[in-house]
Each structure stands twice: as C-alpha cells, then as structure tokens.
C-alpha cells in the first residue's frame, strides 16, 4: 500500500509494524481483514477444485475418473470448505475492513480477540484438509454429517469434529467482536437507524452466529461421545433417535444459511444506491425485513427434513413459517428494484454483480418457495433440484455479492483502480456460465436425478454435460479475480479522490484512499456525518 496518500494528520500516528510480526501479532482491523480475505480466496479455490473434479466425474454416465468413495468425500468436503472456509471468512474479512470505517471507529473493539478469531482458522482448515490423507480418507456422508452414516467413518471422524469446534470458536469470538464494535464504537451522532445497511445486516448476522454456532458445537459433541464414549443420543436401541441430530443440526443449519446471505443483502443495499444515484428505497423497511428474516430463520428448520417422517402438524407449521420468509425477502427485492427505478444508472463491475445478484438470487428464492411446499418437497427432496436451489442462492447470491463488495471497495483499500475491462470480463463469464452450470440442474432434479451420486442413469447425460461445461468455464474464469486484485494493488492507477464512485455515500468515502492505518482515530464530526449521508 502506498503511503504517500495519507493525510499529514494521520501519518504521524501511523506506526505500522513490519515483517511477519505485522501479520502474526496483528491487532489492526485492516490487516486482519486482509488475512481473512486471502484465506477465503485460498479456500475458494481449494473447494472449487473439488467441484471441478465432481463435474468432471459427472460429465457423462459411467465411473471413469474417481472412486465413488473419493467422490463422496469430495462432495462432502466441497460443501464444508465453501461454507466454513470460503464464504464465512470472506464476510468476516469484509466486516473487519468496512465496519470500523463505516461507523467512524478507530478499529475493532477487541483487537486482540480479533487476531485470535482469525488465527484459529488456518489451524482448523489444516486439520480439516489433512483428514483427506488419513486411512479411510475424509468423511463422506455429506456436509450435514447425519448419523448413523457419519458414525461409520474412521480416523477422519474426530478430525472433522474438532475442526468444526475450532471454526465455531472462531465464529463466536468474531461475532462477539462485531456486536461490541457496532454497539460501542459508533461515532457520536450515528444512531442505529443511521447505520449503513452492511453494518446492520452484519449486526443481525452476528446475533445469529452467537445463537447457533454453540448449538452446532453441541450436535458435534453428541456425535463425538456417541462414537467414542458410548452415549446413546442417536441410537434408538438406547432410547435416542438419529432424527434428533437432524433437529439439532438444522436448528443451527437454517440460521447458518442466513449467516451466509444476510451480509450479501447489506452489500447489495450499499451498491445499488451508489450506481443508481438515488437513496435506498425504504431504508427502515430493509432493516426490519432483515430482522424478520433472522427471527424466522429460527422456526423453519423442519423444512430440511420433511421426508424424515415427522407429524403432519409439524410439517404444516414448518411449511407455513417457511413460506412467510418470502414476505420480508420480497420486500427486499422490491426495494432494490424500486431504488433502481428512474435512477441515473451506470454499470461498473460492482453494479453489474449487484444486478445479477437481484435476478439470480430471486431465482434461487423462488425455487426455495417450491421446496417449502410439503407435497412438492416429497418429489424434490434429495434431488438435483435442491442442488440447483442452494447453489443459486449461494453462488450468484452470496459469492457474487462478495465479488461486488471487493470491486466496490478495492479502490478504497488499495488506493488504486483495478482494470475495469478485465473485471467486466470476469462478470460476463461468471454470469453466463453460472447459469449454464446450475440452471440445467433444475431439469435434472425434476426428472429425478438424485444428488450425491458418482454415477447416474444415461438419460441424464445431456444436461449433465451442459452443466459440466458451464462449471469448467465458470471455474476457470474465477482465476481472473486474483489476477485483477494483484494487478490493481501492484500497478493500478492511483485513485486521487476519496471516492472513485460519484454516487457513493457513507463514512468510508470520507477517508482518503487508501484508508489510513487506523481508520478514525478521532471520531468524525456531525458535519462529516451529514456529508457522508448526502454526498
């Protein structure tokens, strides 16, 4: 990072530590945010490589590339790596970078704890990835780890359990830090309903994390004691029930999928007003909608297990509560569209990804509504339709929002502008081939192709080939992102103004580019706040 752009007032406080200590002993929110984002990128490509092998195996019917056991390990690990390794650390990285800047704080409230939350993760992923290389290979029962199948894995079983415990500790500590920062370090005058939406959505996400990560830890502990210490939580002969695991797991699991998507809502709500050059339509409605979605996420877990054999009353309850979520989500999509309505729009890469998000996330949302209906779910359950659904909300949903956020804030982080043309290539390749990759999976699922299989009946071959081709091009085009970022940081054109985007609002754009090492050592004044609101 070039230091020449720092204002004189900040430069004197800028004792930046050098060498390895800067990273290993880091207490600075930007350094820690950078480490989170790099880790997330590495895990994204590792998880992506697993996906490439999966798509290669499924290119045509017949067992030609990998052993079915390896295939099952790969699908399981692809899910766990992408959720815990790629998307969650990316959100925490963005939170680290942006929340102090957006609320006028000098840093995160608990800087040492912040370092610990990050440094737990490389160890956790070492344990998790190493489980590929122990006798019996990695666990292979799917990322949901249902017993009794999960109980049958060998040496990798405790490795995965303890890796997940470590990730859980990291997430809980990170979430505590984010809540404390937002509740305690806002600039004077920044009331809760004046906070940027990325801060709001992350606040609510952090509450979700604190509430459900310990529950996952509980579920994993029960697995561990059932396996090694003879407890009977999931053993019917002892009075337990394997379905108990499903309840505990999905009580974590459904809020978890909102943990993966709520910060995306925040980023999209920041970007669309910037490039439509209009204030966000219905700011307060957005906040309340986010809170409603978070609340509902705690009472819908049963829709993941309609076919397990639950009482009809429970099925009805979970079906209706799930369909309710469409209301606040609809409010959000409506407000994004209404923000763009008659806006003075321009289509820089962050905006392109944001618009694609609105359309494609909605596709995933609507297939979710189809899945929420108990009778139809009996047809769709465990098919590729479900795979299509959650990949639509997580890839052109969460991942596109991460890309949008990176392209939006990278000039602020680095003080350089990236190659706009290459970024647009990245966008167009991604948005076209993500649909080639995932849309055919709807057809495959409706035709009855089960998920998590290494081989399939020949009638499914055509759409699988299309999906695989989409997957290969989509995967390859992601290599553009690290190149664009690297080129931008090394030799991008310096950004002279505080903001390269003429329509952007918010405190982060009141800081010089690149932002000083300690964002707001002195809280911004009311005048700065008012300027950030209007711009």
């Amino acid at each position, binding site marked *: 990072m070039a230091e020449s752009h720092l204002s004189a007032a900040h430069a004197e406080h800028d004792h930046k530590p050098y060498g390895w*200590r800067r990273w290993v002993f880091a207490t600075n929110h930007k350094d820690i945010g950078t480490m989170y984002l790099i880790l997330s990128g590495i895990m994204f490509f590792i998880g992506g490589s697993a996906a490439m092998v999966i798509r290669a195996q499924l290119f045509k019917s017949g067992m030609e590339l990998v052993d079915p056991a390896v295939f099952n390990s790969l699908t399981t690990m692809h899910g766990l790596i992408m959720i815990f390794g790629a998307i969650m650390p990316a959100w925490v990285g963005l939170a680290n970078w942006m929340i102090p800047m957006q609320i006028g704080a000098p840093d995160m409230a*608990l800087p040492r704890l912040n370092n*610990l939350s990050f440094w737990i993760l490389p160890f956790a992923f070492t344990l998790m990835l190493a489980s590929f290389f122990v006798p019996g290979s990695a666990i292979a029962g799917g990322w949901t780890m249902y017993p009794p199948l999960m109980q049958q894995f060998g040496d990798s079983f405790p490795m995965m359990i303890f890796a997940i415990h470590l990730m859980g500790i990291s997430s809980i500590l990170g979430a505590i830090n984010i809540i404390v920062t937002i509740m305690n370090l806002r600039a004077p005058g920044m009331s809760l309903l004046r906070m940027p939406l990325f801060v709001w959505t992350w606040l609510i996400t952090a509450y979700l994390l604190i*509430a459900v990560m310990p*529950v996952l830890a509980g579920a994993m502990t*029960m697995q561990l004691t059932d396996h090694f210490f*003879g407890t009977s939580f999931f053993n*019917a002969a*002892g009075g337990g029930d394997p379905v108990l695991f499903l309840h505990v797991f999905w009580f974590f699991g459904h809020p978890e999928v909102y943990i993966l998507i709520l910060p995306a809502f925040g980023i999209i709500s920041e970007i669309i007003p910037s490039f439509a050059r209009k204030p966000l339509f219905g700011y307060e409605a957005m906040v309340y909608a986010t809170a409603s979605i978070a609340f509902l996420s705690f009472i819908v877990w049963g829709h993941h297990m309609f076919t397990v054999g639950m009482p009809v009353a429970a099925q009805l309850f979970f079906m209706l509560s799930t369909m309710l979520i469409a209301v606040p989500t609809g409010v959000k999509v409506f407000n994004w569209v209404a923000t763009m309505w008659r806006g003075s729009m321009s289509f820089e890469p962050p905006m392109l990804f944001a618009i694609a998000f609105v359309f494609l996330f909605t596709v995933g949302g609507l297939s979710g509504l189809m899945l929420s209906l108990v009778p139809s779910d009996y047809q769709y359950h465990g098919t590729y339709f479900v795979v299509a659904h959650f990949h639509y909300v997580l890839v052109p949903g969460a991942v596109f929002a991460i890309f949008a956020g990176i392209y939006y804030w990278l000039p602020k982080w680095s003080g350089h502008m990236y190659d706009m043309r290459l970024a647009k290539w990245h966008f167009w390749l991604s948005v076209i081939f993500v649909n080639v990759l995932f849309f055919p999976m709807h057809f495959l699922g409706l035709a009855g192709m089960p998920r998590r299989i290494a081989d399939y009946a020949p009638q499914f071959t055509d759409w699988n080939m299309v999906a695989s081709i989409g997957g290969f091009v989509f995967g390859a085009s992601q290599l553009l992102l690290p190149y664009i970022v690297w080129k931008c940081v090394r030799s991008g054109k310096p950004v002279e103004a505080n903001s390269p985007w003429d329509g952007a609002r918010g405190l982060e754009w009141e800081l010089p580019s690149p932002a000083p090492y300690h964002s707001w050592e002195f809280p911004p004044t009311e005048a700065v706040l008012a300027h950030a609101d209007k711009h």
Partner: protein
Amino acid sequence: MTDARVEPRKYYVPHGSPWPIIAAVALFSLMLGAVLYLDGVAPLWVLLPGPLLLAFMFGGWFSTVIGENQHGVYHVREDRSFRLGMMWFIFSEVMFFAAFFGALFYTRMFSVPWLGGEGAKALTNFLLWPHYRATWPTNGPGHVGGKTFGTMSATGIAAVNTLVLLTSGLTVTIAHHALRRGKRGTLKVFLALTFLLGFTFVGLQAHEYYEAYTRMNLRLTTGIYGSTFFMLTGFHGLHVTIGAIMLLVIWIRVLRGHFTPERHFAFEAVAWYWHFVDVVWLCLFVFVYWL
C-alpha cells in the same frame, strides 16, 4: 452515546500481541491431542500440551490486560466493550447448554414415546421392539448399559448441591455490595466463601458420580438417561470448576488490592458467570433430577 463526547481520549488499540497466536496454537494442540488420542495414534500424554499451553496463555494474556488496566489505559468505552463482550459470551454458553436440554426434551417428549408405540413412528415399536414400554428414566428398548440401573433422586446430593450453589450466589452478591461500599474485609471473606462453596459443589458432584458408577450401575453408557444425565451435569460441573477458579483468581487480585468501588469489571464479569452457572443448575435440578 454521550460518553464519547465527554471523554476526549482515544480508544485504546493495542499494537501487536503474541497472546492470540499462542491461544490459537494452544487450542490447536488441544484438538490435535484429542484427535491423536481418539484415533489411537498416540498415548494419553498427548492430551497434556494443549491444556498446559492454554493455562500459560490465559496467565499471560490476562496479566497483560490487568497490567494495562493498572496503568490506567482503560476508560469508560473500553470498559463497556469488555462488558458487552462478556455478556454475549455468556449468551453463547447458554445456547451450548440449550442444545443438550433440547436433546433431553426431544427424547422425553418424542423419541421415547415413539419407541413405546405412540404417534408418528409407532411402527418402530411394532416391528423391532414390540415389548418395549415407554418410561422415564429409560436406557432404551435395547437396555444399553445393562438390564437395571439406579437413578439420581432430587432429594439427595442434588438438593444439598442446590443449596450450596444458591448460597454461593448470595455470598458473591454480599461480596459485591461490600466491594461497592469499600468494605474490603467483608469482601475478602465472602468472596472466599463463594469459591469454597463452588469447590464444595464440585466435590459433592464427584462423590455423586462415584456412587453412580460403583453402586448404581449408572454410567455415561446407560442409554439415553445416562447420556443426558452425565453430559448435562458434566458440562455444568466443568463450568462450575472454571467459575470457581475464576473466583479464586479474583480473590487473589482482591488480596493484592485491585479493584475500586467504582471500577471492577473483572469482578462483575466473574459474578455474572457465576450466576449463569447457578441458573443452569436450577434448570438441571428441575428437568434432570426432579421431573
């Protein structure tokens, strides 16, 4: 929000610290040790480095923070960060216990009656265990852990322990009031009483476990009753032990003259934790021992 304006000081941001990475390594050693032991790769001693490193880390990290505090680095806003942090940490602990209480309620309300032939999954009973009648306590239709086993009554050690823990909640409150009024003598006595009661609780519980294992054939492996009983009371007992150690540390700090009537966050944090442990115990007493 007025504090920030009244107080012109900068928020304290430490510059680099070795403790977090030591903590990460300690946690990793703990988990790796458990993996190596459970997978049968290494003998029991691999479990040792993790806790030792962890203890070293807690000592080092907390003395750094206490030292900073004694040097007047912290002010109102730092103090509030610590308070909020502790509050939400305790909430996450509550949710951890919620998972195990959820397991207890689910088995008692649903899975055991179903195994006995009621409701949605009556077929299991009909096909697999037609002679099984749903009762509680139970170790399941397969009698996992033996044909007969004893159960813990709510009027025995559990009642005594309830009294012990409730009394300790009272003594820690008396100590807090004494601290606020500057009565250091009362503070020292009642804080000491609190952790002594805490360790008494742990001792009595150890005795209860010993009885269960040696005389009652009640073990962790005694079906779902043994599983829920030992996991819930075991994790609670672990938390009481941690809480009592924290009280002991606070007591030593009191002896060294730390804390003022106005500012004593560490004391309050430990007191909150102690009340949390207390409330969990009341739930345990009602749902595990009594009902």
